[in-house]
């Protein structure tokens, strides 16, 4: 790709409506420095109209926990009215049957509910929230009752990866049409807990074969989407389908990012929807131009035939692990730093999770809670 190649239209917009969240997940993917400020309903409605005009087809209403916004139904309606396909990504906490009905009426197209494990005690322990599991079950039933398609997002790591079959069975029982086997990615808060979350190679290999067997067994009943977790892959993932290529992310305060973790890369200049139109930001903002296309690449990416497939992998991971955001994602076996990934995958510690607690975080910094071993 050269600078002369036209910029593609984005297909998807991740709308982080709020960074507030009742859960304390140790692998939280939100940035370390959370947005306190939040765009109001009218600002989101404008963003959705601009997104649709730019070619965006789907909006993912996410957070934090999007249900923490009292105006979630109005926001959903605004996205629907803009002609966007609306996908709600939720922990289910804060969404009663009554409240969910207002979202269904607002034109919600699809719901994705995360699950932490296949049974209550472990699931609630991982989420750091007593009662979360039960609420997920209740919301899933409501989604199905409204005949809205449901995806279960099963977040996998060392404590639950051996339960992958049970988690898929649970997704089927809940009436999901699709389940994502989503291995934890180590950015932001999750880095703090990496040694406590990292699965072993043997676990990953077992899970990969289990998923193959599950796919064959449940064909036509549920779609199982899974990728090999980063630290055990041979080639990197095409992160966000390529930087500034297919998707964008708007933070609660209105900053527009090429991916949700982009703020971890120092020196990038992000523009805000408060000052610029989404089209201006997509085409011209320095952060989007930084790693768009392939001109920024170094070797071995620059001459690699895979560069149009995986775009050099993840910029945030390249920076986090090598200190250079232009480096080849070290997940790639062709990266000169690949050995680092293998070494980090071996760093495992049986220690309590460092949960993410918004209120306490403000007051007293991270709080450690009981270890997985002490879970009931």
């Amino acid at each position, binding site marked *: 790709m050269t600078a002369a190649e036209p910029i593609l239209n984005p297909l998807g917009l991740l709308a982080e409506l709020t960074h507030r969240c009742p859960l304390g997940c140790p692998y939280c993917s939100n940035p370390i420095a959370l947005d306190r400020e939040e765009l109001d309903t009218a600002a989101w409605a404008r963003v959705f109209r601009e997104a649709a005009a730019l070619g965006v*087809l*789907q909006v993912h209403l996410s957070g934090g926990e999007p249900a923490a916004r009292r105006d979630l139904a109005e926001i959903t309606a605004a996205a629907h009215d803009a002609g966007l396909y609306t996908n709600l990504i939720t922990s289910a906490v804060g969404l009663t049957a009554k409240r969910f009905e207002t979202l269904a009426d607002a034109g919600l197209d699809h719901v994705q509910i995360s699950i932490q494990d296949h049974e209550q005690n472990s699931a609630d322990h991982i989420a750091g929230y007593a009662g979360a599991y039960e609420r997920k079950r209740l919301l899933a039933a409501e989604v199905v009752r409204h005949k809205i398609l449901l995806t279960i997002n099963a977040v996998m790591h060392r404590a639950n990866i051996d339960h992958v079959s049970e988690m898929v069975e649970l997704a089927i029982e809940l009436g999901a*049409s699709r389940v994502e086997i989503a291995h934890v990615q180590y950015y932001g808060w999750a880095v703090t807990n990496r040694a406590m979350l990292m699965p072993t190679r043997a676990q990953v290999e077992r899970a990969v074969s289990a998923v193959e067997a599950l796919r064959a067994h449940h064909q036509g009943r549920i779609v199982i989407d899974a990728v090999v977790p980063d630290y055990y892959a041979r080639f990197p993932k095409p992160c966000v389908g390529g930087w500034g290529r297919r998707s964008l992310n708007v933070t609660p305060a209105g900053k527009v990012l090429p991916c949700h973790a982009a703020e971890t890369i120092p020196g990038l200049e992000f523009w805000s929807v408060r000052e610029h139109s989404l089209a201006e930001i997509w085409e011209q903002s320095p952060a989007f131009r930084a790693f768009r296309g392939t001109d920024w690449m170094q070797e071995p990416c620059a001459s690699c035939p895979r560069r149009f497939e995986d775009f050099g992998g993840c910029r945030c991971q390249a920076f986090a692990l090598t200190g250079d955001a232009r480096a080849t994602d070290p997940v790639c076996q062709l990266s000169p730093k690949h050995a680092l990934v293998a070494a980090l995958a071996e760093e495992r510690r049986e220690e309590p999770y460092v949960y993410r607690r918004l209120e306490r975080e403000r007051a007293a910094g991270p709080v450690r809670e009981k270890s997985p071993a002490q879970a009931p």
Partner: protein
Amino acid sequence: MQLTETPQTAAIPPDARPRLPRGVRLVHNEAQGGLVLLAPERVFKPDPIAVEILKRCTGEATLDAIVDDLAKTYSAPRERILTDVSALLRSLADRKLLEL
């Protein structure tokens, strides 16, 4: 993304009335250059043949009627149309993008 994967063997009853479920929509989008099929966390760009089939999956027309209509519209052998339509519908149904 391809709409048709490995065709499945299970036959679709001729009186089935295929329909797109809530959350799967065929929409026109200028910026994306025509009709796209929107689905949970997926966007498909159907080829012209798939578009003609999908447009007929209204929940009212039976498989038989859809095949008859396409065979007539395109003056094509009915058996060939039935094979193509069945493969697409089965593939979509297996991925929960179509109700039969």
